């Protein structure tokens, strides 16, 4: 396990190196002054500009500039947003947590719906149920998320009026930002309308989370189905059958557990896909997450925000990958021996 951990850490280190290099070079590739692109201080006075030049070592060569950039990142200074002149790192905390919240809910919906359906479909291999579930998953996978989002708003918000169409929670509730994760913030707040806010937040997350969950759920269906079929064909299942275990026992005691382990890695891999979907969905549902913010920054040519946003987002996705790898390795000793990073 130690070798495995070291290997993952070195992979993490080099990936971060490349990510920061790309992010750093963006400030030169974007139009305008590099130091302004890095710091985001568009209205800086001459003296302030001088200070910034010193802080980012602009008089030194590119290597030292990169080192200065790294120092800024590690001290948590991602500059100011060019458009709103707010500190990006503080803004990022609430944005990223909103996205994490949405993605986690979507991921759990996708898992709780997708994986059982996949197992059912594997157990009923080549029967009408299997075919129905498979075609459903095909359909879910091919529907574009932006279209589905609009359709959901049209149906459930405008026509039926069941669920709200925009935002994280009704603006009427005043909840202080403490952890950044809204559900926790609501529960620890002292607002008299706490529970009302909680259920309002639940109502707000249902539509966007379901819309995001559709595509990963259909992938999970197929993955779970394949892995279950694989497990059911293994010799230990056959041995279990020969021992006289009944169907229920075989599935619940042996097959599901082994099939699930295989799923864990896929869940991690699906996460980046999920974040991409979440970015688009955030725009449609005005979800105050990092995706919407990044897309707005691109529209506003807010280079500092784009640069830092990309760095933070890719970093986050990478960390999730590594984490799922660890969980997988912890649960499945066979995986630890594998040599390569993927």
């Amino acid at each position, binding site marked *: 396990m130690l070798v495995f951990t070291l290997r993952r850490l070195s992979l993490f280190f080099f990936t971060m190196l490349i990510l920061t290099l790309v992010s750093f070079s963006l400030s030169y590739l974007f139009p305008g002054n590099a130091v302004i692109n890095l710091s985001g201080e568009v209205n800086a006075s001459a003296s302030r500009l001088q200070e910034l030049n010193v802080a980012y070592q602009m008089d030194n060569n590119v290597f030292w500039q990169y080192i200065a950039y790294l120092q800024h990142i590690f001290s948590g200074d991602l500059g100011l947003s060019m458009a*709103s002149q*707010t500190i990006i790192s503080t803004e990022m905390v609430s944005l990223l947590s909103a996205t994490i919240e949405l993605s986690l809910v979507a991921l759990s919906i996708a898992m709780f719906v997708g994986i059982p359906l996949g197992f059912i479909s594997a157990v009923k291999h080549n029967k009408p149920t299997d075919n129905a579930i498979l075609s459903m998953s095909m359909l879910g996978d091919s529907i574009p998320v932006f279209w589905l989002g609009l359709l959901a*708003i049209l149906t459930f*918000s*405008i026509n039926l*009026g069941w669920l*709200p*169409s*925009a*935002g994280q929670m*009704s*603006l*009427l*509730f*005043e909840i202080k930002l403490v952890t950044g994760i809204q559900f926790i913030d609501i529960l620890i707040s002292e607002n008299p*309308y706490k*529970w*009302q806010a909680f*259920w*309002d937040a639940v109502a707000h997350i249902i539509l966007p989370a379901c819309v995001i969950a559709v595509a990963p759920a259909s992938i999970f269906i197929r993955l779970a189905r394949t892995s279950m079929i694989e497990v059911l064909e293994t010799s230990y299942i056959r041995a279990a059958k020969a021992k006289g275990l009944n169907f229920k026992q075989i599935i619940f005691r042996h097959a599901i557990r082994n099939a699930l382990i295989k799923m864990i890695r896929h869940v991690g891999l699906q996460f980046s896909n999920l974040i991409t979907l979440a970015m688009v969905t955030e725009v449609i549902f*005005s979800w*105050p997450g990092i995706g919407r913010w990044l897309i707005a920054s691109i529209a506003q040519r807010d280079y500092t925000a784009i640069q830092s946003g990309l760095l933070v987002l890719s970093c986050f996705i990478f960390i999730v990958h590594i984490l799922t790898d660890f969980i997988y390795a912890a649960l499945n000793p066979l995986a630890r021996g594998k040599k390569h990073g993927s």
Partner: protein
Amino acid sequence: MKKLILNVTVLISLVFLSSCYDEKLLSLNEHSIVYCSESSPETFNPQLTLSTTAIDATSNQLYDKLLAYQGDGSTLGSSLAKSWHVSRDGKKVTFYLRKNVAFHQTAYFTPSRLLTADDVMFSFNRILDINHPFHNVSGSNYPFFQNTSFNNLVKKIEKINDHTVRFHLAYADNFFLANLATDFAVILSAEYGKQLTKHHAKHDIDIYPIGTGPFKLKEYRVGSFIRYYRHEKYWQQPAQIEQLVFDITSSNTGRLTKLLAKECDISSNPIAHEIIHQRDDLTIDSLTELDVSYFGFNVTKAPFDNKLVRQAISYAINKKALLETVYQNKAELANAILPSTSWAYDKKITAQVFSVDKAKELLSKAGYGDGFTMELWVIPKQETYNPDPLTMAKLIQADLKKINIKVIIVSDKGDTFLHRLSAGEQQSFLLGWSAEHSDPDAFFTPRLSCTSTNNHSRTFWCNAEYDNIIEKSLQTTNINQRKKYYAKAMAIVEQEVPLIPIAHSKRYLARGKNVKGKVLSPFGGISFYRVVKNSDNGKVLHENKSTDTVNEKGKK
């Protein structure tokens, strides 16, 4: 069996939770208004801006003025000043302030005293005195006051006692009082200014506002929302709603969706009016703005030096078609330069007849029976009074072709274009104006009088009789008399046709039918002070009654 019990308990708890959720939501929802606004205000101090967004978010919510317009806007009433006195020469104006006016108490400021003359001095000296400690905070730009040359007008402000202030004017000005009632002339807190100076945070005065208005600022997140709470110690009856939230939604479809999904109670500039009209629970308010878009002639250039030619063209233009195409019927057809919302509007004015035959007849009378070629200058830029000037020009081109006039459209976005217009290089042009204050004179003296020919009007039209009439109307305070003068002035303009008024723009606001109370006002920004919300079920009648009494009290 175990499962069944579990299911039943889950079901029961869900029902219970959802029911208590609904009940509570009503209580908070009932006392709050969510307004979907179109963009973020750039400042919380209306002194510093002309932008509608900023005025909407600040003026009538956070602040009060010394005076306020009353009724149809023809008279000024008391507000923070309970009465005022103008000296005979018109150069000294004394205000007697109310003694019970409290400033907002917020997380960032706790007032220790009520409104006094110091606050009035502080608010206006900030604009007038270039050495005032707050003059240069947030830039030294006070556009409304600069446009009305306020600093030339006011020589000094004198504190007579704690509740009396005197303005010394350089010359008598008819609009001085009217200007003090506009959305820009708000009263700030001097005590707050002092506190900020002490903490070296002067800039905060325009970001974390303190005023005397019916609501106080709680929280603002750029591009996201503004949260206001009711000012409990408001000097009038406190507002009916406890919380006011501006949900900043810049996308037009986003605002429509939120309105339809009932996520906002009131929405600014709604699109798709037909869809809103189809819904039983929604309605649209509209109000004609004090502006006009027009087709003007340079009366010093042939052939427009001939009155008959100008008249002919006024018959040949199909204004209704312009209104349909350019404004999608979301504007009022202009029969005169003054919009019908102004108290001086003469109701006897009839709509201009559209008649190609009449136009042809007048043209041949003027000696241009075979037509001619003319230039029409257009600035292809969207304005509040004209959403699409170029399309309008093309429609006019088509209209005039029918009476054998060939129109060449000259358009240019550059800054020099306006200068060239002022220099009088054009034959005819499409422009418009918005009134700075609600007095009807804003439509007459600065635009069409002989003295203004160099400034605002590009028609170079000068008519002694017209000048005489509008001057007389300014010398009297008798409303009926003034109405008569303005009616005459409008008749002259209609006869002489230095310009053809085309449309007055309209402002729209969509709201749920359960939201009662006036929001739009013909002079300036919106106000949520009188808004009440009825729960959708049952309570309507009872609530309605209470609103009316409150309104009555408010007026008194």
